[in-house]
């Protein structure tokens, strides 16, 4: 009864109180405006409601408003909840799906306002509904467009990023680095672009048809150990054999030869061939520690990178070949230059005694032709000069030949047990007459027995005394000291008081053709000390130059005690 009272009040309010207002509500077309009784039954219906929801007034008045809700919402008690909120708070507002008479859905904006009488008791609800389906669709389309745009932007950014990465690969590939630096740089880029844990380049060794690890990142041991994979076997070998990309989603269940990949915990692998002019030159592979499914895009990207890496390797190999050719040419040029210098020095050295010989002999002939008498003393002196020059020429030629033999490694020792003292004494006696300004003195015990090539040892002593004379032009004593130790080793020292050797020349003193005084003295061919060192070293000994503070030079030779048989063995 109470209910019918309020209903009545409401109807009166809606219909009688203001006819003009009622007309307004009824004719609004864009809004469904209608009244609900306090329980939610529809009490009025306007033109907008009919247009939006499809019901005529006679069909819908008296029905419960939950008819507009999707079944799911009704199950959840949404209509009752809306009325409760509206009566408690005065107002309920939402947007949501509603159902038309024909069953189609529309997106509705709904406002439910509770209506109270003067006594503050609920008399019903005013419900205003707007069809926002178009708006909703527009919004959804916009959101979709936005999403598409966002996706497109992300994709293009990624593409730009990859292009940039590729550009850096190309730049690295074209830079003029040596192959090692180049590969290191390229592998860094590859790891960055594909976000992988390992990258490796294996190059094909054509003779053995084997891939050899050449550069790696994350699995450097592969290169250090020089890992080799036969073409056709294992992961890398398969790529080279099939000339196409190979993907291993899970290494554990695949044939992978490299134990390093296993110990490094690599789970997934992707590899592509390195191809130059249709020729496989190697393999580039990347690995991931977490299980990863490399996709077509990854493969395509890696292949693009691999093409550039292959170009880079080809380029670097060409550059390296050119460099090594240049280096070899420079070396050959230096060798030729050294030989030319040697020949020029040799010619210079040979020409001087030759001049003396020529003039002395021609002068003698001239005297004889003139019928002049030759004083025996003058004749003797001239012939002595001739004799000395012949000896000098002979020594020079011997030095030249020995140098050639040393270079060819064709000089054998003929060691025998000998007494060294008379050998050294013989050299001293022979050298003394060559200079009036020098006093050559031997300091030695009675005898020293050793296993040595006597002729070579004599040559060593001769060279050192000859040097001592040459490099002390002011004359003075030349001390030759020979000592033998109890263990059979030998020390020979030759000391002069001459001009010494400037510090900057000391390092290279024993080099072939090296002339410490080459620019300002006629010091020979730069062969004496070279030959001396060769002989000493063949005996297993050492030679050193010492420069005493009071001037001059002291050459010290140390020879170990060796059995003749052992030396002979060594010489072979």
């Amino acid at each position, binding site marked *: 009864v109470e209910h019918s009272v309020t209903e009545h009040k409401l109807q009166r309010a809606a219909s009688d109180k203001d006819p003009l207002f009622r007309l307004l509500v009824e004719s609004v077309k864009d809004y469904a405006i209608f009244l609900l009784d306090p329980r939610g039954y529809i009490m009025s219906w306007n033109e907008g409601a009919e247009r939006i929801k499809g019901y005529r007034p006679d069909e819908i008045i008296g029905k419960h408003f939950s008819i507009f809700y999707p079944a799911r919402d009704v199950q959840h008690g949404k209509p009752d909840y809306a009325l409760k909120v509206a009566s408690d708070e005065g107002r309920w507002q939402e947007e949501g799906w509603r159902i038309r008479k024909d069953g189609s859905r529309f997106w509705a904006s709904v406002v439910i306002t509770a209506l109270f009488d003067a006594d503050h008791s609920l008399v019903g609800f005013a419900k205003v509904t707007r069809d926002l389906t178009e708006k909703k669709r527009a919004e959804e389309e916009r959101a979709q467009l936005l999403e598409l745009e966002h996706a497109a932007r992300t994709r293009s950014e990624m593409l730009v990023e990859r292009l940039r990465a590729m550009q850096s690969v190309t730049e690295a590939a074209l830079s003029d680095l040596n192959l090692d630096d180049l590969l290191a740089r390229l592998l860094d880029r590859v790891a960055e672009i594909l976000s992988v844990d390992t990258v490796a380049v294996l190059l094909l060794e054509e003779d053995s048809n084997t891939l050899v690890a050449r550069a790696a990142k994350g699995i450097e041991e592969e290169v250090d150990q020089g890992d080799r994979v036969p073409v056709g076997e294992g992961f890398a070998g398969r790529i080279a054999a099939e000339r196409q990309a190979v993907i291993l989603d899970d290494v554990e269940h695949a044939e992978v030869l490299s134990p390093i990949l296993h110990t490094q915990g690599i789970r997934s692998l992707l590899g592509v061939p390195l191809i130059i002019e249709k020729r496989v030159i190697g393999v580039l592979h990347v690995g991931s520690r977490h299980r990863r499914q490399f996709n077509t895009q990854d493969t395509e990207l890696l292949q693009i990178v691999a093409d550039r890496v292959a170009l880079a390797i080809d380029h670097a190999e060409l550059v390296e070949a050119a460099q090594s050719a240049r280096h070899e040419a420079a070396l050959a040029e230096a060798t030729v230059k050294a030989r030319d210098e040697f020949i020029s020095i040799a*010619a*210079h050295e040979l020409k001087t005694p*030759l001049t*003396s010989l020529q003039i002395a002999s021609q*002068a003698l002939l001239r005297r004889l032709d003139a019928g002049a008498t030759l004083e025996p003393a003058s004749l003797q*002196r001239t012939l002595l*000069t001739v004799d000395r020059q012949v000896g000098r020429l002979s020594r020079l030629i011997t030095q030249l030949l020995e140098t050639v033999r040393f270079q060819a490694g064709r000089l054998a020792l003929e060691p025998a047990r000998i007494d060294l003292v008379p050998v050294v004494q013989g050299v001293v006696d022979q050298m003394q007459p060559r200079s009036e300004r020098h006093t050559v003195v031997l300091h030695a015990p009675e005898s020293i027995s050793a296993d040595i090539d006597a002729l070579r040892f004599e040559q060593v002593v001769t060279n050192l005394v000859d040097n001592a004379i040459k490099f002390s*032009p002011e004359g003075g004593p030349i001390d030759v000291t020979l000592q033998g130790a109890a263990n059979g080793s030998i020390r020979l020292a030759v000391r002069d008081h001459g001009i010494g050797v400037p510090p900057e020349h000391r390092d290279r003193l024993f080099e072939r053709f090296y002339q410490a005084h080459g620019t300002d003295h*006629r010091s020979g061919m730069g062969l004496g000390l070279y030959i001396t060192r060769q002989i000493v070293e063949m005996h297993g000994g050492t030679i050193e130059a010492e420069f005493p503070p009071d001037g001059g030079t002291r050459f010290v030779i140390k020879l170990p005690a060796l059995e003749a048989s052992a030396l002979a063995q060594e010489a072979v």
Partner: protein
Amino acid sequence: MTARRRVLVVDDDESIRDTLQFALSDEGYEVRAVPEGTAALALLREWHPAVIMLDMKMPGTDGWAFTASYRQMPEPRPPVIVVTAAADAATWAADVGADDVLPKPFDLDVLLATVERHASTSDTPQTRLHKDDSYFT
């Protein structure tokens, strides 16, 4: 003997000094020989040769250093014949403004002809002095 027949040999090689002395003495030259430039410059202060035979590469004062000092001495100066075994003998001779060059080795005939040519035209205080001397002998 006149000063026209004085020859100074500057060479560090003893055999060259000996043989040039021997060969030129036979032709009536008075020969003095020293092993390097400083000794030669000292000798030139008191002994005036008609010709100087100069080696280039020598320990001590070499041919280049010698000619540099020699050019500072008052004129007239005796001609210099560069005597060297070096391949670029002619270049070196030109470098130091030598009057002639004898590349080693050379024939005795060439040596004698060269020395004779320069000695006969040499114009030094000493040769003039000896020319004057000849008036009185």
